[in-house]
Every structure is written in C-alpha cells, then in structure tokens.
C-alpha cells in the first residue's frame, strides 16, 4: 500500500463514516445495484463509491447538500407550504396544463404526477418522448423480442450495439451485463462472445468490438432492411455499399453470424431514434430481431439513458394504458405522439402552464419550445439549479433519489430495483412535494365543482377517484 493510500485510510478512520452496501446508482439506465458507499455523516457527503463507474462516481460525489432555499416563487424564498399552494393554484387555473420529465425520480413520485395530471385534466409526458419515444411507437407496431440483462449476461454469444456509445454513456454495460462478465453459458466472458458495434462514428466503444461497421450517417434503416432481406434469403446488389457505406460481404458475414449464434442481442441507442426515420429505424431493428427467431434466439433492447426513465414508461403505462404523450382533457387518457408530446405542446403554443419534474427542457429542447416555456407559469422540482429552474414561477429544491431517499426504480430491462439511501437531506423528496400538491389540487377541484353546482354524482366521482 502506498503512503498516500495509507493516509487516506487513516483519514477515513477518523471520520464518522457509514457504509451502505448494495446501494443503487441512479445516474443512468444501468442502475447498478452493487455500490458500496462510504458516507461522511458529519459533512453529509459520499466520499467513496466502490464499484461505481466514472459517471457514478461523479453522481455520488457531486450530490451534496446545497445551501439554498427549499422553495422559491418568482425567485423569492418562500415556505414549502406557500409554494405548494401556488403550484396547485397555477395548475388548477390552467386550461392546458402539462406535466413533463419524471426520468430522474422514483416510481412512487411518478405515480403522484400521473394522479395530479388526471385531476387537472392535463397532459402528461416523460423524457422518453425525446429519447426512445420512437422505439415506444415501434414496439406497438412491430412488437418486442425481449429479455433481461441477466439473460444476456448468462446466455448471449453475439452482442450487437447499434447507434450508441456505451463506453461513455453507460460505462458498466460492458463489464456488468454484456461484454466481459462470465455467465452460466458464457464461462469465459468476452472469449465466449462476438461483439459488433454499428455506428457512424468510431467512438471509445470501438475498443471492445470484434467487428466495427460504420454506415453513412442517416442510412441505418437501409442497412437494417438489407439485413432483413439477406436473413430471408433475398439477394442484394453490391450497390448497397454505394448507398449505405457498408460492403455487401460485411452484411452477409453479419447475417451468417446472427443466424448461427446461440443467443443474440441487439442493443440500440439514440443513433436510431433521433435521426431521420426515427420509429421506422427502431421498427426495422425490432423486426430484424423477430425475423432471426426463425433461426435462433434473438432479442432487442433499447439502451436507456436516465436512471428511472424506464420506470416512467412503466408507471405511466400501468396508470393510463400508454407510455408517454398522454392527455386527460376529456376525462380519460388519450395517446397521440406529435400532439400530446412535450416538444409539440410547447412549440405549438398549446400549454398554458407546466409542471417539470426532474428534467431540464429549458436547456435541451428546441429553441421554439424553450421560448414558449418562458412565457407560461412553470412549476419545477429539481435537485440542482438548471436553465429550467431559472425560468420557474415556482421552484422546489428536492432531495436526490437513491442518495437521500428510498423508493423504486426500473432498470433498462424493466426489472424493478429498490433504492438504499445514504444520508438525509433537509429538502423534501419529489414524492412528498407531489403528494402535497395533489392533496391541494384535489381540494381546489372539489371547491370549483361545488361553486359550479356540480351534480351529486359528479361530486362522488371526484371524491372517490382512485388516485
């Protein structure tokens, strides 16, 4: 042990340290649940996150307790109760209120957000709509041959990454699930697998790839469709290289590998969903996986970004019947991407109030959508200051999920995982704030119905609404 390491150990021994084992990192959709956190209880911060990747280490190290007000109205400090009242009034007064975000909070909080939106007859959408929303559409059109990441680890001998760079966005995806881990039927780890990377750029992920395929930008659909044709035994002209940048022999070789593997998996990223073709690209990939099941076992999984974006899909689906882009204005849920998705409700000028939970559209949305967001009252719940909190009418600073609060999140393969918090925060968590807003919204709606002389039947329906 070096002197430096020894000093660090002694320093840690002198502190009031709590060890949290099997904690969960909620930075990305891998939600690795094998963290060992060393928490300095005096300073209220995590000083070591064993097993974390570079992104996880930053996530745990940088989420400390900020010296900031818990609630603001138009930039002025107020009590949480006053902010809850203003948030509820704002949402109830609006004619087209929207709820958006939800990918970095617990499923318990997500459930409350759906309930509020249902009460106010608003519109609910999650960051899925600007992430794997097109894949969500493709699932409905084509279906999904799916599996857990555990099955991939134990069985997959051909792993294809398409349109993503996990080495930088999901660093432990390779080591924990799909490339190097030793599984039941892959006892030699990477030696038992062939790794293929399909991307327009040569990224850091290329380092693990046995085969690197680089289509021309915007030609993923054409490559996928050519692969489908070859799988079905249809001949393809060598001109395919001119069109897509990929030689026919490379495609033919890949098809043979796909048909002859024991368990194949296609992991796909936003190189497919955010480019020309969108849901057609995802649909082509899902259809390819289905076609391959004529020959072997083949699955396809989207690689999901935020820590609980998969939970948002699950919760909104089991509460409304649809995964994102859901509108309650008629009193029942309707799904219509392109109309009820948030880039559209903002860019088209439909929304007249917004509640943004744990996301930052003020930074990442198209300019036109951000301009509209600046012109309507916005309620924001976030752990840190962002461009969105800067434009908020009502802003809540909340505790960080997985670090300060427990709850449930969903890994990118739809497996639910519990959180083990490390230390307490003086700020309330999202679920607590949303429950309080829901309660007040409910009271205001009952009052509004009373003043409008609602029928006894309507009052009963509102009172027993199972939220």
């Amino acid at each position: 042990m070096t002197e430096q390491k020894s000093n660090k150990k002694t320093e840690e021994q002198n502190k009031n340290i709590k060890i949290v084992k099997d904690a969960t990192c909620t930075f990305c959709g891998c939600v690795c649940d094998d963290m060992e956190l060393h928490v300095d209880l005096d300073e209220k911060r995590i000083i070591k996150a064993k097993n974390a990747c570079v992104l996880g280490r930053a996530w745990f190290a940088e989420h400390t307790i900020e010296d900031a007000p818990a609630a603001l109205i138009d930039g002025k400090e107020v009590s949480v109760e006053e902010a809850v009242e203003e948030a509820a009034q704002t949402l109830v007064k609006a004619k087209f209120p929207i709820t958006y975000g939800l990918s970095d909070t617990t499923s318990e909080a997500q459930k409350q957000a759906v309930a509020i939106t249902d009460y106010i007859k608003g519109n609910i959408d999650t960051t899925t709509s600007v992430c794997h929303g097109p894949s969500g559409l493709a699932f409905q059109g084509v279906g999904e041959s799916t599996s857990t990441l555990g099955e991939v680890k134990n069985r997959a001998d051909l792993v294809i990454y398409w349109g993503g760079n996990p080495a930088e966005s999901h660093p432990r995806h390779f080591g924990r699930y799909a490339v190097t881990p030793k599984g039941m039927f892959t006892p030699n780890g990477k030696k038992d697998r062939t790794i293929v990377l399909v991307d327009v750029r040569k990224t850091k992920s290329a380092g693990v790839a046995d085969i690197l395929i680089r289509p021309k930008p915007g030609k993923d659909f054409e490559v996928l469709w050519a692969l489908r044709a070859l799988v079905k035994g249809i001949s393809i002209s060598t001109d395919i290289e001119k069109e897509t940048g990929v030689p026919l022999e490379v495609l033919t070789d890949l098809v043979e590998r796909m048909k002859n593997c024991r368990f194949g998996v296609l992991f796909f990223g936003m190189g497919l969903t955010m480019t020309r073709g969108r849901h057609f690209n995802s649909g082509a990939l899902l259809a390819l996986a289905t076609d391959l099941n004529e020959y072997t076992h083949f699955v396809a999984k989207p690689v999901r970004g935020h820590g609980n974006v998969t939970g948002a899909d699950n919760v909104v689906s089991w509460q409304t019947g649809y995964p994102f882009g859901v509108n309650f204005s008629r009193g029942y849920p309707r799904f219509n991407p392109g109309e009820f998705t948030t880039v559209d409700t903002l860019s088209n000028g439909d929304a007249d109030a917004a509640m943004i939970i744990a996301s930052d559209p003020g930074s990442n949305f198209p300019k036109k959508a951000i301009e509209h967001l600046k012109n309507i009252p916005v309620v924001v719940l976030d752990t840190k200051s962002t461009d969105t909190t800067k434009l908020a009418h009502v802003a809540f600073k909340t505790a960080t999920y997985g670090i300060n609060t427990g709850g449930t999140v969903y890994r990118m393969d739809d497996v639910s995982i519990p959180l083990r918090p490390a230390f307490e925060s003086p700020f309330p968590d999202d679920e607590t704030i949303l429950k309080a807003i829901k309660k007040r919204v409910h009271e205001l709606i009952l009052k509004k119905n009373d003043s409008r002389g609602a029928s006894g039947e309507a009052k009963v329906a509102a009172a027993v609404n199972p939220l």
Partner: protein
Amino acid sequence: MLIPGRSAKQGTSLNQGKLKEEYKEVTSTLEMNTDDMKKIGLVDGDKVRLSNDIGETVVSCIGKKPEDLSEGVLFIPYGPPSSQLMESDTAGSGMPLSKHMMVDVEKIKN
C-alpha cells in the same frame, strides 16, 4: 451533419451542475474531422459559428482523425448550444431530429 450526443465528460460535468463553467465548456466544444478543419483554415481551439434555418451558436473546435469522424460529420456533447440549432417539428412523432442537423460552419476571425 451535426450529431449532438453524450460524452463521459459531459456526464461528469452535469453532475457538478449545468450552470457551472465546466459543463458550459464541454457542451461548447465541437469535434471536427481534421481534413475538414484544414479546408477552412481551422486549428484546435478556434471559434466557429454553426448555423442553420433554426438558429446559430458559437463554439470552439477540436480535431478528430478522419478515420474516427468522417468528412462532413461533426460531433458535439449535447446541451444548450446544440439546442439552438434543433428543429421543433417532430413530424408527428414527438421527437425532434436531435442527431441529424444540417449546419453551416464558419470560422470566426479573431
């Protein structure tokens, strides 16, 4: 074609805070094919203006080997600068074309 995307540095700096200098710097650094840079007289660190019908933004550029980043392709860690160039039309899907932006690149003279 401009491709905004994630990078490890963008991921670590956003944890520090999106309003902090490091995040702003990371999301304002454009990767460009070195042959393309030579054509318009750019060296690492030069400022360029990216523009299209939607808007414009000024960023610094750094070179990437042609075998890593093809001619005509640009990469930037996504953030406020890339949003300035993003079309709001989602073609009925909810998703703007966030990784497929045609832009003009212009050197900014010092």
